[in-house]
């Protein structure tokens, strides 16, 4: 059964339509990649789903209950959202920062509960960041920082994770590490993940379903094997890619073309 259902979602800022009639469902423990060209509305869609934007039209339902009726705090116990390239200028330590993810579970009149402490420890250990929990977030390298960001949303302990380009600025090794970490969370915890990415190849290899947005519309919703075809990629991105078969998985991947070369 779908834990998150989106029906006819439309959103406009200052009269400009960003999303139009977006409809899809997310099942428990699903790993879905959300792809599309720049400006397609991917980040806006995540923001609507995280209720960062609240003035959209249409329906967002969790277990059949309307999101608009939920308070921000209730929603944050259901959906955790990792914004894109969020800078942390303020000298918070990793531990303090991750503990802030427990906000929707806490109360202003009690100190962090044993459950909060446990959730933070678990998130830090899972993301392999426990060893530098006393360091300042902004002194971390890109790879460490991104794992800390993930730890903060994991500490929120929600059944749904929304990730906006969680691996974009990482090198190969760290990208793979984070990707495997996400896979682990997805399979072990049955956490549904909706991840925005520009890395189509990784999306095709790791996710079981791909959603593609173009100009605020969903133009593709299906398995990666169907998505990785010249015609469909051309339709989504307006660009004919060079595809080669992946040596391990039986799925084509995109390789960069040389200027002047074929195709």
């Amino acid at each position, binding site marked *: 059964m779908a834990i998150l259902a989106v029906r006819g979602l439309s959103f406009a800022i200052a009269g400009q339509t960003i999303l139009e009639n977006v409809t899809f469902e997310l099942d428990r423990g699903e790993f879905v990649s959300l792809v599309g060209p720049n400006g397609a509305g991917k980040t806006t869609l995540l*923001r609507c789903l*995280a*209720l*960062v934007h609240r*003035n959209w039209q249409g329906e967002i339902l969790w277990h059949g209950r309307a999101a608009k009726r939920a*308070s*921000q*705090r*209730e*929603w*944050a*116990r259901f959906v*955790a*959202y*990792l*914004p894109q390239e*969020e800078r*942390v*200028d*303020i*000298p*918070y330590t990793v531990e*303090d920062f991750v503990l*802030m*993810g427990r*906000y*929707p579970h*806490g109360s*202003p*009149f009690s100190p962090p509960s044993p459950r909060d402490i446990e959730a933070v420890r678990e998130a830090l250990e899972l993301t392999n960041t426990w060893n530098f929990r*006393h360091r*300042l977030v902004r*002194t971390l390298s890109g790879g460490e920082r991104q794992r800390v960001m993930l730890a903060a949303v994991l500490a*929120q302990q929600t059944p749904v994770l929304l990730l906006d380009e969680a691996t974009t600025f990482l090198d190969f090794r760290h990208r793979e590490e984070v990707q495997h970490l996400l896979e682990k969370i997805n399979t072990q915890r049955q956490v549904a993940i909706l991840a925005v990415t520009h890395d189509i190849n990784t999306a095709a290899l790791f996710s079981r379903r791909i959603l593609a947005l173009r100009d605020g519309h969903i133009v593709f919703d299906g398995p990666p094997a169907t998505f990785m075809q010249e015609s469909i990629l051309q339709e989504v991105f307006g660009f004919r890619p060079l595809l080669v078969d992946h040596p391990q998985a039986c799925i084509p991947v995109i390789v960069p073309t040389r200027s002047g070369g074929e195709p």
Partner: protein
Amino acid sequence: MKPGRSTLTILVVGTLVVLAAAPLVGPRWIDPGMLWNGDNPLEARIFWDIRVPRVLVGFLAGMGLAVGGTAYQAMFRNPLASPFTLGLASGASLGAVLAIHLGWNKLLWGTPAVTVCALMGAGVTLVVVYGLTRLRAELSVATMLLAGVAMSFLNTSLILVLQYAVDPVRAFHAFRWMLGGLEGTLGYRDILWLGPVVLAGTFILWVLRRELNLLSLGDEWAAARGVSLRTVKTLILFVSGVMVAAIVAHCGPIGFVCLIAPHISRQLVGPQHTRLVPAAALLGGAFLVISDSVARTVLAPAEIPVGVITAILGGPFFLWLLLTRPLSWEWVP
């Protein structure tokens, strides 16, 4: 590991020492031993009826200004934001200047008309800033800041017009009011209304410490963690605003406290508002009490307005901080 806790203890002790010592200081120095033997009724009266209430009001004022500054700096994500940036000080000044020029020196509800008008001036400014911000769909802090700056300019221009147009004696009175001072505090009546406002405001902002932590990371991050942006921002705007308006209405616009105290506090206890709010409260209070002690002592029997002292101490101190270490927002221990 709580490095801020011992610092906070030291601050509490230091503040108590300042509070105990400050009433002894002034144009007439008081020997604490003489207070109790009953031989010096004059000294005892100066101490209990003038100095102690003045020190307490100074402490409350410094505390409220510092905590208000801390909250606004987190909400606006800007170490230079303060309730004064939103035009509250100029709004209060406009109200006060108007009352002085119209020659209202009656008591309204037991409070001087100038204070009541200053409170109304700041209140109107606060409501207009909020109203202008609400015109936009989202309660954006950038819009709020711009609305505040616009109101600040508007208020200041009206003050200039009034100051230019009227009787120079009254204009000087108004000018003197705008320098800020605590010499208007006589007896304990002012504490009865300023005390609850400042203590309640500080407490509410401390209750909102987790929201302040999240807001300082940005709206998107805060909303996604479950902070109801509209409610929390409105609450912070009005709680800090009302607290600062009450203080400014009573003491005049005393500058710099709401910038310096939070700034030093961040250096001492770090960015977590759990400790930052109490640290700023203590430091702001102690700073204003010390400044006021200097104000009534150095040129005795004349007094220097305390706003002049905080500016003289504050300006160069801020410059020194800026030149010697990175901005506190960027601060690494």
